[in-house]
């Protein structure tokens, strides 16, 4: 089972630039507010630190940090893959985000797949409506790739 959640856009810059903006200017474009940030109550910076083996972290001014996940694949201009953990995930639980950069006539197609929902244990508290920063809404209702795929295949989505 592969892609769970997929979104895509075409950006009017070349793929190296697109990759650089995504990974080196993350804090400038990553939206702010509790829906999008992990440390939403204080001014904080979200950044990819290092390359493969590095981390995606959010750090506040006092120096406390939240590690979103490790960087798994780092291929400038092509492919980025990183772990994605929200605040309430327990050790060993993670989802995975893959970002692909492909050249197209209008610029670069940037596609994001977010998968691995099945790694959250069935009794995980994050699945049951606790409120909190970025992604709690989403993980409060845990879901498996399997089901997402079923919904797609069966056309049960109205979209």
């Amino acid at each position, binding site marked *: 089972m592969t892609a769970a*959640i*997929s*979104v*895509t*856009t075409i*950006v*009017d*810059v*070349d793929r190296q*630039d*697109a990759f650089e*903006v*995504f990974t080196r*200017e993350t804090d*400038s*474009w*990553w*939206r702010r507010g509790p*829906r*999008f940030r992990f440390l939403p109550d204080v001014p904080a910076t979200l950044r990819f630190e290092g390359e493969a083996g590095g981390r995606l972290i959010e750090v506040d001014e006092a120096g406390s940090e939240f590690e979103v996940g490790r960087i798994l694949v780092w291929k400038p201009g092509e492919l980025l893959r990183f772990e994605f953990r929200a605040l309430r995930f327990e050790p060993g639980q993670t989802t995975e985000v893959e970002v692909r950069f492909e050249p197209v006539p*209008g*610029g*670069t197609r*940037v596609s*994001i797949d*977010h998968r691995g929902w099945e790694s959250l244990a*069935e009794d995980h508290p994050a*699945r*049951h*409506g606790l409120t909190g920063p970025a*992604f709690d*809404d*989403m993980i*409060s*209702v*845990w*879901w*498996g790739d*399997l*089901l*997402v795929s*079923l*919904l797609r*295949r*069966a*056309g*049960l*989505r*109205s*979209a």
Partner: protein
Amino acid sequence: MAAAARHIDDTFAALADPTRRRVVELLRKRPYRAGELSGAFGMSAPAMSRHLRVLRNRGLIEEQRVDDDARIRVYRLRRERFDELQRWLETVESFWADQLSAFKRHAERTRPRKRR
């Protein structure tokens, strides 16, 4: 929210089984009688009945009487349960869609345009 989460857990548990997933796919097209379903799957009536009970107890399908004959019942999908799933999917998708559009604006503002 908690109720919706609970429902979605139920939905997942019910659909963890491949036969039940295929039943759901069939019921998407039209209501079926239990006998038609066991026939379609080459399965004994009691075995199919167990699957239907799980789907019904978890709220994914419901039994309905056919107008003129109380003995005949058909099973149909409960659409609302799938609508909850759809809303969850849309929440996650809109998270990334919003991020990507913010990313696109920033990239196109700060980098040379490739086109033209």
